[in-house]
C-alpha cells in the first residue's frame, strides 16, 4: 500500500500551489489517473480526510478522472481501449502493440477560495 505516500504528495503539491495563489482554502482537487497506474481511489480518499485536517485542504473534495488504457497495433495500425485485462489487438490478434495512454498520474488543477477583500487582480 503506497496510497499514504501518494496522498501526502498530493497534499504537499496542492498546498504549495494554494499558497502561491494566496488561497484561503482549497475546495476541490482534480486528479488524472491512468488505468495502468496502480492506485486505489478509496484508500487515497480515506487518508485524505485524515491528513488534510488543519491544512488549507481541510474539507476539500478529491475528483478522480480515470483515463482508460489505449493501445495502437503496430501491425494493422488499429487503435483499441482496454476494458479490463491486457489483450492483444482485437482486430488482427497481434501482440506487437504500443501503449499510447494509461500511465497518467498527475494533479491537474485545484479549485481555491480567495479573500475577496484583496484587490482583484486582472493579470
Amino acid at each position, binding site marked *: 500500500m503506497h496510497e499514504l505516500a501518494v496522498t501526502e504528495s498530493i497534499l504537499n503539491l496542492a498546498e504549495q500551489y494554494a499558497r502561491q495563489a494566496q488561497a484561503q482554502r482549497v475546495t476541490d482537487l482534480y486528479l488524472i489517473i491512468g488505468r495502468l497506474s496502480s492506485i486505489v481511489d478509496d484508500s487515497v480518499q480515506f487518508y485524505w480526510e485524515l491528513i488534510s485536517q488543519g491544512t488549507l485542504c481541510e474539507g476539500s473534495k478529491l475528483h478522480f478522472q480515470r483515463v482508460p488504457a489505449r493501445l495502437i497495433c503496430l501491425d494493422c495500425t488499429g487503435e483499441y481501449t482496454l476494458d479490463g485485462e*491486457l489483450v492483444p489487438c482485437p482486430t488482427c490478434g497481434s501482440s506487437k502493440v504500443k501503449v499510447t495512454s494509461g500511465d497518467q498520474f498527475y494533479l491537474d488543477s485545484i479549485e481555491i477560495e480567495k479573500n475577496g477583500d484583496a484587490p482583484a487582480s486582472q493579470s
Partner: protein
Amino acid sequence: MPLKTNSTNTARVPIVEKILSANEQMAALNRAQLDQHRVFSINVMASPGAGKTSFILQTIKALASRFRTGVIEGDTAPVTIDADKITAVGMPAVQINTGGDCHLDAVMLRDGLLQMPLDEIDLLVVENVGNLICPAAFALGTHINVLIASIPEGDDKPYKYPAIYRGVDVLIINKVDLLPYVRFNMDYFRQGVEMLNPGLVTFPISCTTGEGVPAWVSWLQERVETAALMPPETPGDN
C-alpha cells in the same frame, strides 16, 4: 471597479504536475550524486520470494574480480538477514528499514547513499522491498531498473501488474529450472511483457543451477564499463 458582493471568490489553479514529482526531483539528485562518484547503479524489484538476494549474490560474486559492489537493502522490518549475506561475501551493505512501508523511495535511498562508501565502489545494487505494485511508482535515481519474475509466481503477472513491467529496463526470469514441474506458459507470459514493454531485454536464468547467469552478468558488465568511459560530470577527475 469589479462588482463584488461576496467576501470570497473562487479560482481554478492549473497545476498539471506529476503527483510524485517531489520524489522524482530527489531521484535526480541521487543520480547526480552517483554519477559524481562514478558509481553505476541498479534497482532490483520483484515480489517476495522471487530470488532477489540470491540473484544479487550471484551477480556480485561473478563480477567480484572486476568491480567492487555495494548493496543497499530495503526491508520492511529491522532484520539483517539479507544484509548479512552480502557482508559475508566481503562487500559493503547498508540496510534501510522502511518502517513498514512497502517500497523504497528516493529520500530513503538518499539516506542509504550517505552511509555507503561511494568512492570505494563501482557498482551499487539496490534491493527494493519485495512487492510488484508500490516500487513501480517511486523512481530512485538508479541507472537501470531490473525486474525479477520467477516461474512459480505464474505466467499471468504482466497482465496483473502492468505498471511495474512498463517501467523496467531489464527483465530476469528466475527459477527456469522449475519449468518442467510448474504450469507456466512462457509464450503467454512473454506476450504480456512484449505488449507492455516492447523489446525489453530479458534473461531467463536459474540462480540454483547457474543457467543463464553468465549472459546477464556480461550484459551488466558491459553497461558498467560503458558508463565508466563516459566523461565525468564534474571536472578534476583524473
